[in-house]
Structures are given as structure tokens and as C-alpha cells.
């Protein structure tokens, strides 16, 4: 810097120096304007709301005659042009599940010329974080539609009534699934994309029959089978509840399963809606039954310590060791993606599955299950089209072929499933006496995705006893209201 231009450097300013100062001022002002202009632009260029081509919404445009919900054709010529647009999707899938879902997204994106940005949540409340920080995704997949209630109230998630053909979608869905995508006032904010029945027990079929074991029909028979297996020198069950930030959810599934079968669907609903306290006798009873099985010496591979440190996707490996380290594993259909590759290659020969047995004959034939729902967080036209697509039965086709996917639509062509096991499970679901959605995914998220999960982890680990666990979840829930 030429120090002579300012007083600080001593001496009076020459006219030339003053001239330099004036120019400098001019340059400085221009710089400031540029900075202000640039930072304004940066804010908008990152979002996916790129300069939209005037796009007609919903029913107004030219579109395939049959409602998109029931159409079997791929995107027809009359569809909205999405070339070059970007969609950001967040989903909770990992491993083979992620591969399957990516295949679905990629197939759609390539066909419509859309650019995809995807991210897996890895068990974290990523959607909440993103919305919180003002940077929501375009589309989010969630297995807990109850989380969407507060997003709806905050105006972050958009109603789907103008985007998805709700009537034709609901007519093809398995009963009970459509309502779960609604918020309290009945507005539909999410559409089911995959259903995952959870009332299933998996076993290594060849080894199981060779050992002379038989599929149990009731809880008592299942416990007796467990004792038989234990006597033969192996722990009967493989259970793992670790899942990163979501640790504990498999244990909540067990509790819900038993709750449904011992207290019945009505009490189950009351429990989920907090119409009965969380430490009600029915819940205590269900938990104690779980403890009878899971805390019983030698019943679970590795014992309680192993349960809390084994991840849910690693747990079934024991079924396929030689010789098996366990024979029974209770888990949803999506667990098949975590089986060893060679087992997956010929699922029907390597694996057997039986419905979780009835406990109380009054509440027989019930299925508990979860599902993955797609919700819309921006009015990006490509995002709207994606959600519309995911609501159709065809969307699951790409994933179904890979395995680990079951469609929520009754109209889905079951020939697309890669094996009989998946088909049988689908049939069982269709024939069930009643279906209930996973309780922890229906409860308000602070409990269902918070206190309930961590409470179960503490209890299984032995850090807290059952009464303390249930009471503290109850007081947490009461404090919320």
C-alpha cells in the first residue's frame, strides 16, 4: 500500500494522493455491491427450485386417461417434462434395501431425465435436522408417518390430494394402510410405498427339519421348541437390537407383537394413542412375556449383553452358520436383504418362515407390520411427480425383483416376486384377520422414536428394571401433553 495517501503516514495529502483515494472509494463501493449481489444469488442457486418451466398442476394437464394410480404403462408422452430438474430424496434404507430403493429411483430418474441427489439417514433424525436448519429435502421416505404431524403443522410437508390420485390409490391398497398416511385432520401427506409385515419368524429350513424340529402353532409350543433346541446344545434365538441412533426398535417390535396378541387390537390402539398409560398391566404383562423368552438363560445367542451390542442386520447371521448358532429369528420381510448372498440366491430352499404364533386364541391370525411412506417437502414439480410415481403399484417392480420388497397394493403382480416365500408372506398378509401398523411408528415421535427405543435398550441391558423403564416412558409421554 502506498502509505502516502493517508494522514496516518504523515505529511499533507497531495492532489494526486486525494485522487487515488477517491478512486479507491469508488472501487470499494463497487466491491460491496458485488458482494451483496453475489450472496443474494448464492442463497437461491442451491435450492432445487430452479427456474421452473410453467408446469400445469395435477389434473389440469394432458395426461394418461386412466388415473395414474392404476395405470400399468410407463410414463407416457403426455407427462410433465422434467428434463434437467433435480430432486433430493432422503430415505432410511441401508445395505441391500438401499440398493433396491436406489434402483427404483434411478429407473424413474433416467426415464424422466431428472437428476437425483440422495442420502441415507443412517438411523438419525435427518429429516428433522434438515427441516430445522432450513434446508429440507424434496422428498423424504419414512417408516414412522407419525413424524409428519408436526411437519404438517409447521407447513413443511405438503398435502398430496392434488398430486396423487387418492381414490384409485386407496382402492388398490391393502386395508388400513392409506389412513396411516393422513394427519389428524384427515389430510393425506404420505403415500405407502412398501409394506413390511413383521409377525414372522425365520429359520434355516434344511437344518431345522434335519434336527427334527417342528414349526410351532402357539406361543407355548414355541417356548417348548426353544427348550428343545437349548437341550440339544444351541441357543434357539438370535436377537439383535442395536441400530445406531435408533437402537432398541427391534425390542419395541417384540413388545408390540406380544401386546397385540395378548391384549387384542382395541387395547393395542388405546396403547398407541396413549388412552391407557404406558405402564398399564397389559403392557407389563406383554413385556414380562418377552423377558420370559429373551432373558431366559441360554435362550438367546450371546445373552442380553449380545442383544444390545449386535446390530439388527447382523443378528440373523447365526441362522446360517455351519452348524447354526441359533434357529429362530423374528423380524420383518426386509431382513432378507441382510441374509448371506448365497442364501438370498435361493431363498425358498434355504429359509423357512412361519407366522408369529397366536398367544391368546381370542386374538388369532393378526399381523403386525410396518411400511415405508413417501412425503413431499417442496413444491418442486419433479418431486411431485416422484411422489405420484411412488404411489403407484408399478414403482415397486424394480425392487421386487431384487427381493426384500413387498408391495402395499393388492393389484401388484405377485409373479414379480423372486421367490415363493415372499409370495406366501404377501398372501398371509392379504388373508390376515387383522393388521396393525407398528406401534412405535404411530406414537408421537418423542416417545415412539425416542423414549420407547432408549427405554427398551436400557431395560434389555439391565440398566433399568421393567417398572422403572415403563414408568419413565409414561411420565415422559404425560409431560408432553
Amino acid at each position, binding site marked *: 500500500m502506498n502509505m502516502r495517501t493517508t494522514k496516518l503516514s504523515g505529511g499533507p495529502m497531495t492532489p494526486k494522493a486525494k485522487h487515488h483515494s477517491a478512486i479507491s472509494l469508488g472501487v470499494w463501493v463497487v466491491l460491496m455491491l458485488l458482494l451483496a449481489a453475489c450472496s443474494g444469488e448464492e442463497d437461491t442457486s442451491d435450492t432445487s427450485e430452479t427456474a421452473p418451466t410453467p408446469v400445469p398442476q395435477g389434473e389440469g394437464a394432458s395426461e394418461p386417461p386412466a388415473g395414474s394410480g392404476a395405470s400399468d404403462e410407463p410414463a407416457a408422452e403426455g407427462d410433465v417434462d422434467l428434463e434437467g430438474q433435480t430432486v433430493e430424496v432422503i430415505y432410511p434404507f441401508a445395505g441391500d434395501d438401499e440398493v433396491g430403493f436406489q434402483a427404483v429411483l434411478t429407473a424413474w430418474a433416467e426415464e424422466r431425465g431428472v437428476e437425483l441427489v440422495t442420502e441415507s439417514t443412517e438411523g438419525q433424525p435427518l429429516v428433522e*435436522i434438515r427441516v*430445522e436448519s432450513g434446508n429440507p429435502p424434496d422428498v423424504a421416505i419414512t417408516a414412522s408417518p407419525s413424524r409428519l404431524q408436526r411437519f404438517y403443522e409447521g407447513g413443511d410437508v405438503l398435502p398430496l390430494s392434488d398430486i396423487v390420485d387418492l381414490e384409485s390409490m386407496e382402492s388398490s391398497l391393502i386395508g388400513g394402510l392409506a389412513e396411516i398416511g393422513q394427519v389428524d385432520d384427515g389430510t393425506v401427506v404420505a403415500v405407502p410405498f412398501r409394506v413390511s409385515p413383521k409377525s414372522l419368524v425365520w429359520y434355516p429350513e434344511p437344518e431345522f427339519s434335519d434336527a427334527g424340529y417342528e414349526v410351532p402353532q402357539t406361543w407355548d409350543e414355541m417356548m417348548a421348541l426353544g427348550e428343545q433346541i437349548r437341550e440339544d446344545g444351541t441357543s434357539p434365538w438370535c436377537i439383535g437390537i442395536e441400530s445406531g441412533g435408533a437402537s432398541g426398535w427391534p425390542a419395541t417390535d417384540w413388545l408390540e407383537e406380544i401386546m397385540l396378541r395378548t391384549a387384542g387390537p382395541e387395547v393395542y390402539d388405546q396403547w398407541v394413542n396413549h388412552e391407557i398409560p404406558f405402564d398399564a398391566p397389559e403392557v407389563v404383562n406383554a413385556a414380562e412375556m418377552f423377558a420370559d423368552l429373551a432373558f431366559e438363560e441360554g435362550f438367546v445367542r450371546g445373552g442380553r449383553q449380545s442383544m444390545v451390542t449386535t446390530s439388527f442386520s447382523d443378528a440373523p447371521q447365526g441362522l446360517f452358520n455351519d452348524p447354526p448358532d441359533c434357529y429362530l429369528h423374528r423380524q420383518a420381510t426386509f431382513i432378507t436383504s441382510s441374509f448371506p448372498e448365497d442364501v438370498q440366491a435361493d431363498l425358498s430352499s434355504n429359509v423357512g418362515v412361519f407366522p408369529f404364533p397366536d398367544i391368546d386364541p381370542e386374538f388369532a391370525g393378526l399381523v403386525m407390520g410396518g411400511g415405508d411412506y413417501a412425503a413431499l417437502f417442496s413444491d418442486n414439480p419433479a418431486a411431485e411427480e416422484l411422489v405420484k410415481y411412488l404411489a403407484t403399484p408399478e414403482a415397486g417392480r424394480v425392487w421386487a425383483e431384487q427381493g426384500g420388497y413387498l408391495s402395499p397394493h393388492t393389484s401388484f403382480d405377485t409373479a414379480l416376486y423372486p421367490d415363493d416365500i415372499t409370495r406366501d408372506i404377501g398372501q398371509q398378509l392379504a388373508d390376515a384377520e387383522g393388521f396393525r401398523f407398528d406401534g412405535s411408528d404411530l406414537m408421537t*415421535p418423542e416417545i415412539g422414536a425416542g423414549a420407547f427405543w432408549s427405554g427398551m435398550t436400557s431395560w434389555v441391558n439391565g*440398566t433399568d428394571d421393567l417398572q422403572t423403564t415403563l414408568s419413565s416412558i409414561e411420565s415422559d409421554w404425560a409431560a408432553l401433553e
Partner: protein
Amino acid sequence: MNQILFGVAAIALGVVGPLLFFHFGYRALGLLPDRLQGKTVPFFFVGPAVLLVALGLVLPTLITIVRSFFRGGGSLDFESFVGLELYRGLFADPAIRDVLFNNAIWILVVPTGAVLVGLVVAALANDLKPRWEKVAKSIVFLPMAISFVGAATIWRFVYAFRPEGEGQIGLLNAVVVAFGGSPQAWLTVSNCRLNTLLLTAIMIWLQAGFATVLLSAAMKGVPAEVIEASKVDGASRWQTFIHVTFPAIRPAVVVVTTTIIILVMKVFDIVFAMTGGNFNTDVIVNRFYQELFVFRAYGRASALTVLLVIAVIPIIVLNIRSFRAQHADR
């Protein structure tokens, strides 16, 4: 590709921009009457930084403090105002008391452990030949280059658990089994807060290098004549260390201790990555994360943060005072 260009442009703008800003701005100040120039120039140079800190740090802090007086999901309306009730609620909640207790363990154990290791390594390394001294200190310092989450991943393999009878992949369990014991899922054992102590070991491992380097520098600042004099007087090495060296480097020890304490109060990544706060290992910042993102309880989360800030202030005061004392001697 776009991202690379964008990144380069951002760096260029970030470096060149301020240069141009100050260069031309300073020259433009020449236009001011002479009287004003002297007064304005300091503000001109300090101004942008102060403004950014005020906006990015001071303002959010104030907002958080205000938020801690309102319950619920963040709307600051009259009905939600609850005064100090959230604070009372926090102290009454046994779960929070457990969390505060865990933080207390961290604050007591980590600085002590790190400083002890630092003193030992610095004192012993002092006696080595310069080349080996550098090597020793570098090795101890290496873990500082690792992120907390990276450290958590490494130590996950130290504490890993496999059921009895299966091959152990965790270092600690392998040693235990080799000596005939049975493997434990260490991170789930909360008797005597064993798992928390095991987690603090990770932090000590990370911070010991920092302590070593600073204390070693301080030790070298002790005049050689004083050490000689104490040897002549017949003091053993240990006595020399306790009565001569240690008092001389005490300001440095205080600086290191308080710096580490401030760092330890913020511990989150290690707990989050290793146990998620389960098994009685929860700490304040992890709890805050839960309250904010899972429970969406803005008020409670803010109150927790404010508690943390209040707890840190005396330490910072101590830190700065010691730092000044240390430098005043020079």
C-alpha cells in the same frame, strides 16, 4: 465438476475478497479529514470481524438465553413463557442429574489424565537425545490429528464384544480372554460408570499430546541453573521435579488443564458415536441434541445449553488469567 469450480471460486473470493476490501477501503479512508482518520482506521479494520462474531455468536447466544424461558416448540409467545421453570425442571429430573454427574466425571478424569500423561512424557522425553525426544513427542501428539468420530471408530474395535466362545475381535476382550477371563460388552457396563471411564480414556488419548507439547515447552523454560542448583543441594530427581520444576511450570499446567476442561465440557461426538448416550453414558451436549431434534423441546434444549455456558465461564476466566500470568513472566 461444477462443485470443484464452485469450491475454487469460493476460496478465491474468500481470500482475494477481503484483501481487496481492506486495500481499497484503507486508501479510500484517505478522503476523510485528517482528524477523523486516526480514529476511524482501527474501527475499519476490526469492524467486519466484530460484526460477524456479534451476528454469528453473540446474537444466537442471546436468542438461546431468551428461548430458555419459553417452553415448547419454539414459538416465543406470551402463553409459552415459563420463566425459570425449565431450569427447575432440569435440576429436578433424575435423568438430567445423571447426565450432569457424567459430565462431572469427564471433567475430573480427562484433564487429570491428560496432564499426568503429558507431564510424564514431557519429563522423560526431556532426558532423551533431541532426535528421540522429537519422535516420542510426535507419537504422543499424533492422535490429535484424528477427528473425534475417527477416534470413536478406532476405539470401537478396542472395546468390541463377541459372545463367549466366539473369536474376540476387540483388543480389550482379546486380552481379557487370553488371561482366562470372560469377554464383556464393555460399553454397556455402567457399574461404577465403567463405560464412561472407558470413553474418557479415548479423550485422554486424544488430548495427551496437546498437554505434552505445551508442558514440554514450559519445562524447557525453567532455567537450567535452578535445576543444577537443586541437584547440587542433593535433591533427588523426584524432589527436583516436585519442588522446582512443577511450581515453575504451574501457569502452563493451569492453562492446559483449563483448555482441556473447556473441550471436555463440549464432548459429544465420542459419546454419540460409541453408545448414543445409552447405558448411562449420556452427556449434556448429547442430551441437548436429543431434546432439540428428537423431542423438539426448544426451551429445554436452550436451558441445557445456557447451563453449559454458565458452567464454562469461570473456567474461561481462569484460563485467560493464567495465560496472561504465564506470558507476563516473559
